[in-house]
């Protein structure tokens, strides 16, 4: 029996119709023998548009549907749902993209219309070979592993635990708090970091749902979303349990491994490590926490200078902005002025990035406490040298000031380098263990930078805080809570649906050649040594097709992307 196919050509308002002659596409497609019905409509994705499909399926007994409209990324789900509502298997559907691939990229209406016909015909040819596929569901283990106990990890942990779920909080160091524990006050409201942390740490320590694993590292993560087995090891140098291995079951993982500070000695021109009173922002935080701002000889500085963008926004080191340094520098101005009111503070910056809530106001207030702001050029840098015996300061800083256009020399007893953030030293190892990707700077990559910022391409692995990119405390906390919320929603469902599109290996055709074994970016392929066959764990497969292309014996088939379907589609385009 011939397939009964319905084809729907969308105008997308005027997005498609202004270039593509949709009526001509409809007429052409109607002549194909398998096409039972072909219609055009202004907005196929609208409710009336979808109803059109549902009605036709019911009235005309359509078995398969093609929509020629926008990209499948945009609306494949929408139309699959319409098929399902009409009682058809959602996979009996194919989209032809005549917007991004025709009307938006071509200005010759005739050629664009011919291309739209070819793409629609390809979709018709392909959909003939579609098979009804069923989604699988797997159980969701309600436990979560949180890696890293900085402000992100602590926040996510509390969010989950206080919703009644079990959390394993893993921290490689012997204490909680991460980088925030090294900070005195926070910008722009000058709250104490210690206060922020202590309250959270107390709640974490007293919760019955949290198992705290200090001095511990993740060694291995196996399994898939809802069903991970994490192998942990104790790393402490001594004490009970060192080297001990332990396995735990978790359904999801949140990676909150944070950042490390840029190593100031990599920038040679500021004399860090040589001039004893040139210190980093973290050296200065230590001073602040100790409650005494002083030079290396114990004297109180008369002149302090703060230099921005050390290691950040530079062609040589990191191109990105570390986002928190500008406000931290302003915070230092306030802290210096409050501890040593007579101290003369200069702030040497490239651009003042004051984008966050309350930041611009903070900048204004800092100007009011008599700070000397000096702007230097990107690609340029101030030059620090030791002062002479006649000078009343330890160092002199020469800066090519941009706003005045003059070469200015300023005195300094203490120079604070605002070191940026960079990816953790072991970020690559972490990424490998949990199977997520890193960008060229080493930051972990989100599933979608705007629309899906805390998920990753590995289902069940979430990322939050400064392991993703430099960010301040409010953004970090928001991400941590977002990741926790995503997981709580999944735990509430109890089960998780796994897409019906995945690769599968035919035992008969597989020869155990093992060419596919190392290829899977999601570690979904296992080799059975007894059977001498490889197989795909379907719940872990993301249907990328790498193994399908590589399988030399044709034993691996990509469901919904079979050779037959793809070749039919190619033939359709070449009509």
């Amino acid at each position, binding site marked *: 029996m011939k397939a009964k196919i319905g084809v729907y050509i969308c105008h997308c308002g005027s997005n498609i119709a202004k270039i593509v002659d949709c009526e001509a596409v409809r007429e052409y497609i109607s002549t194909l023998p398998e096409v039972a019905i072909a219609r055009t409509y202004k907005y196929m994705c609208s409710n009336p548009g979808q109803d059109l499909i549902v009605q036709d399926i019911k009235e005309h007994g359509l078995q398969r549907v093609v929509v020629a409209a926008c990209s499948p990324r945009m609306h494949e789900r929408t139309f699959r749902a319409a098929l399902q509502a009409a009682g058809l298997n959602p996979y009996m559907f194919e989209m032809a993209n005549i917007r991004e691939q025709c009307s938006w990229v071509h200005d010759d209406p005739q050629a664009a219309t011919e291309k739209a016909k070819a793409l629609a015909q390809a979709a018709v040819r392909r959909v003939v070979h579609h098979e009804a596929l069923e989604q699988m569901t797997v159980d969701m283990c309600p436990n979560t592993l949180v890696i890293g106990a900085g402000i992100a990890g602590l926040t996510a942990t509390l969010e989950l635990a206080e919703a009644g779920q079990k959390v394993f909080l893993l921290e490689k160091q012997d204490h909680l708090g991460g980088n925030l524990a090294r900070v005195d006050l926070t910008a722009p409201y000058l709250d104490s970091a210690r206060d922020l942390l202590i309250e959270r740490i107390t709640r974490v320590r007293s919760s019955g749902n949290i198992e705290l694993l200090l001095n511990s590292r993740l060694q291995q993560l196996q399994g898939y979303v809802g069903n991970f087995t994490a192998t942990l090891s104790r790393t402490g140098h001594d004490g009970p349990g060192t080297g001990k291995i332990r396995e735990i079951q978790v359904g999801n993982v949140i990676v909150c491994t944070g950042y490390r500070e840029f190593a100031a000695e990599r920038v040679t021109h500021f004399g860090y490590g040589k001039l004893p009173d040139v210190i980093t922002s973290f050296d200065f935080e230590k001073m602040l926490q100790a409650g005494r701002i002083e030079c290396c000889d114990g004297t109180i500085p008369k002149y302090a200078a703060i230099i921005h963008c050390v290691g950040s926004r530079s062609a040589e080191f990191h191109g990105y902005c570390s986002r928190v340094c500008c406000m931290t520098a302003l915070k230092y101005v306030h802290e210096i002025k409050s501890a040593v009111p007579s101290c003369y503070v200069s702030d040497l910056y490239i651009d003042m990035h004051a984008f966050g809530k309350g930041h611009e106001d903070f900048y204004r207030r800092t100007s009011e406490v008599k700070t000397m702001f000096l702007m230097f050029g990107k690609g340029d840098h101030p030059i620090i040298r030791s002062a002479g015996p006649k000078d009343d300061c330890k160092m002199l800083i020469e800066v090519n000031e941009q706003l005045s256009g003059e070469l200015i020399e300023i005195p300094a007893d203490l120079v604070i380098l605002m070191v940026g953030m960079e990816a953790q030293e072991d970020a690559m190892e972490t990424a490998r263990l949990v199977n997520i990707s890193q960008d060229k700077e080493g930051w972990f990559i989100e599933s979608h930078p705007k629309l899906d910022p805390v998920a990753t391409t590995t289902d069940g692995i979430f990322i939050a805080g400064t392991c993703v990119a430099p960010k301040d405390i409010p953004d970090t906390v928001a991400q941590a809570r977002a990741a926790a919320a995503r997981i709580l929603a999944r735990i509430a469902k109890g089960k998780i649906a796994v897409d019906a599109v995945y690769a599968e290996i035919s035992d008969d055709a597989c020869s155990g050649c*093992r060419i596919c074994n190392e290829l899977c970016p999601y570690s979904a392929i296992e080799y059975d040594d007894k059977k001498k066959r490889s197989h795909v764990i379907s719940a872990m497969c993301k249907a990328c097709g790498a193994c399908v292309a590589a399988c030399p014996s044709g034993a691996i088939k990509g469901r919904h992307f079979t050779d037959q379907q793809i070749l039919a589609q190619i033939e359709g385009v070449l009509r």
Partner: protein
Amino acid sequence: MAVKKLQIALYWGAACGGCDVAVLDTNEFILDVAALADIRLWPIAVDGKYADVEALADNELDLTFFNGAVRNSENEHLAKLLRRKSKMLVAFGSCAHLGGIPGLANLTGREEILTKNYLHNPSIEPGNKKIPLPETDLNGQLLQLPYFFKRVYRLADIVPVDYCLPGCPPAPEQVKLSILALAGGKRPPPGSTIGAAERNLCDDCQRSKSEKKIKHFYRPHEILQDPDKCLLEQGILCMGPVTRSGCGVRCPDTGLGCRGCYGPAPDVMDQGSKFISALGSIIDSKDPHEIETIIAGIPDLTAILYRFGLPASFLQRSLKL
């Protein structure tokens, strides 16, 4: 009355003669064949004229083994003739099955082949450089030669084929089993590949296999081989993963990579593209220059990928033909 003997023919198209030798390599079994069947045509071994075949009634032959590709009008004529006269037509060996080694000529054109062979070949005496023509008038006598086609075809491109028996040449044991199967009552369904397995070569290869990463390709004489380890893992090109089994793992067992003569594995559409796709997945480098260097270690890649099956591949032929 004696049981009617099986009427058979064996023919060679564009071939090297190896397939006929493979039939003879069945040794004393050939005597059983003679007892079982009347051989009506077998140019390499038995005297028989085309006119005798033309005189046969349609379907008078029970079985024809056609080896060799279709390269010229004579091959084509005999293919059509034998198809008409035979109940069962078998594409015997790689050339009839997939185009074989002669099929690699599809990478160049007819004119180029004739010019190179008859005008620029260093062994041709000066003054004797002539391209043979289909018809030549010699002292009033018309001399005829078959017409040399633009491209090479496999047998199935010219006439419907009942069975394919792969191999270059087919393994003698498989020839014997196939003759017995076709002569007997239990014939495989038409369209089947006979004398071969429904799996790929690695399935029958006893070498140990592990995860594969290739940094360098070697020709077999260039390295000291580990006799128990997968050849591909040692950097020796072996088409086993994409190739149908049935030969008895002849080449890998002697330390040579499989050359792919049994054709694509049962679930493989295009042997060469499948193999390059697999190779691309296991080359151990992410650096484009290094990858180029590694690939450059393979001499004449196209001919290696499609050594036996260019006319049957997606590519089929060079466009300049």
